């Protein structure tokens, strides 16, 4: 019973594909899976927008949207209708073709990367041998579309926002990929399904063999999530699109549906990179404890995804925005050395015998550089108690 619930979507796919003629079966199966992925993640996007606004509202001691529907949960419908019926304003001096193509080029890679994420047992769209490399490659294609959006608007601030966004994205791409390299080293493969399989099984206390439960995995997960926050331009790294800084950054001149497409692309990228983080570090669709193994695999994946989204919303409401130079210093001077040392830690962990000694060495190799780098980079900066001066 639990097994059939686990594979319910796979059997549904097979049943629907069986209705089609023989020659069209692969195409119909792929189309059904794609429709499922787009449907699920687009509705998750709609739910996340309202959850984020309500969550941020509660953190800031106010209600979020609560007019449309019960507790405001039909707000995405209202937002969607507003975006669709708004007039599409294109500046006269704008580069028409590039201005039109930029939102498409943001959304298409954002949806394309879902092809290699395993959302459940046997539930991956394409099982590439170099699946994770496909993810990073298609994610890197988003940067050019950010430039297209910023430059085609012929607006100084738009271009400035685009340049900042690109500089931020390429700076944080390196710690992102390096922290994922530790997982590839230990699992021995770039295929996402095999990485999830390598995290299966439970040890003597019933705890799963997720990579996050090791010193290098924990450090790698933290680095990966920080870099993911920066890659998707989420607060506290949202200087390129901060509303109080540069209005809307590189999508100032976009209105109506094109703006909605940028918004959609940003959230889709967020879900995708969280999904990759879950696949690499949090064991994909595996349960954390052995006795919870009967719960279906796709429920675990989406539970972990919702937990990560909740943490992202929490961080957004709590931490102040980073300045551009602080952001770049953080990426190049702190995260890059930590990611490189993490690779060494993972290698040392892999070749030592399992036991307490391995844990002590791993913890020392992670905590030592963290403390030393942190203290070392604070030389010359005086951090005192904050003094508030009010207008009297």
């Amino acid at each position, binding site marked *: 019973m639990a097994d059939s619930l686990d594979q319910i979507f796979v059997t549904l796919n097979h049943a629907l594909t069986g209705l089609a003629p023989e020659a069209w079966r692969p195409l119909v199966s792929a189309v059904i899976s794609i429709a499922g992925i787009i449907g699920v993640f687009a509705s998750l996007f709609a739910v996340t927008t309202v959850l984020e606004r309500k969550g941020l509202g509660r953190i800031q001691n106010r209600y979020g949207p609560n007019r449309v529907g019960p507790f405001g949960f039909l707000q995405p419908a209202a937002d969607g209708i507003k975006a669709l019926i708004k007039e599409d304003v294109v500046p006269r001096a704008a580069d028409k073709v*590039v201005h039109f193509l930029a939102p498409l080029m943001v959304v298409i890679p954002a949806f394309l990367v879902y092809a290699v994420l395993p959302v459940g047992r046997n539930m991956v769209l394409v099982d*590439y*041998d*170099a699946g994770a*490399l*496909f993810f*990073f*490659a*298609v994610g*890197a*294609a988003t*940067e*050019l579309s950010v*430039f*297209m959006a910023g*430059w085609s608007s012929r607006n100084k601030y738009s*271009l400035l926002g685009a*340049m900042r966004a*690109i500089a931020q994205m*390429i700076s944080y*791409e390196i710690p992102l990929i390096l922290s994922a390299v530790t997982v590839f080293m230990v699992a*021995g*493969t*770039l*295929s996402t399904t095999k990485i999830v399989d390598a995290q299966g099984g439970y040890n003597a206390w019933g705890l799963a063999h997720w990579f996050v439960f090791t010193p290098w995995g924990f450090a790698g997960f933290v680095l990966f999530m920080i870099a993911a926050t920066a890659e998707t331009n989420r607060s506290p790294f949202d200087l390129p699109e901060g509303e109080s800084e540069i209005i809307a950054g590189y999508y100032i001149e976009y209105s109506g549906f094109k703006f909605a497409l940028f918004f959609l692309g940003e959230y889709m990228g967020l879900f995708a990179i969280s999904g990759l983080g879950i696949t690499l570090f949090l064991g994909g669709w595996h349960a954390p404890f052995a006795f919870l193994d009967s719960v279906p695999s796709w429920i675990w994946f989406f539970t972990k995804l919702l937990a990560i989204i909740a943490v992202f919303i929490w961080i957004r409401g709590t931490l102040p925005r980073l300045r551009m130079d602080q952001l770049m210093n953080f990426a190049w001077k702190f995260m890059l050395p930590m990611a490189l040392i993490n690779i060494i830690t993972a290698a040392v962990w892999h070749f030592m015998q399992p036991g307490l000694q391995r844990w002590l060495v791993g913890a020392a190799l992670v905590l030592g550089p963290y403390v030393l780098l942190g203290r070392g980079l604070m030389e010359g900066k005086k951090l005192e108690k904050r003094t508030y001066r009010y207008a009297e």
Partner: protein
Amino acid sequence: MNIIFAIIAAVTIAAGVAAMSLRNLVHCALAVAVAFAGLAAAYLQLGAQFVGFTQVLVYVGAVAILIVFAILLTRGAEPPQQSVLSSGWLTGIFVAVVVLGVLVYAIAKSSVLQSPVPPQPEVTVHQIGEALMNKFVLPLEVVGLLLTAALIGAVIIAMKEEGKK
């Protein structure tokens, strides 16, 4: 799969021609990014998955952005007043046509085209990794050194000179 190859070839050549002939420099940069993507599709069609994804990651994700940054830093975004062609462009076109003729002649006359088409090779990333670490470890280390030197060199060359005004 001939139709797929025809589409890839048409897109890549059109993007290449556009990259070399457009007036607006930023449009040239975007067109060459499309050409890189078309080539990545060609690599995937030939069964070299790792190289195809690496091509997108390095060329579209880094080199195209580098080109765009350089265009913006050298005020290339304004439309050019004079002709886009340098002096002696006619000789250049002539040389390119001669080179194309020689290459196509060499391809048409070669005997390698008569050999039978072998089946699609199955390459895993594991094999590429083993080859990199066993047979090709020396080029790997040299490329690492080269990339470090290029990184430091590019930063030093492009840095603003202090106190030399």
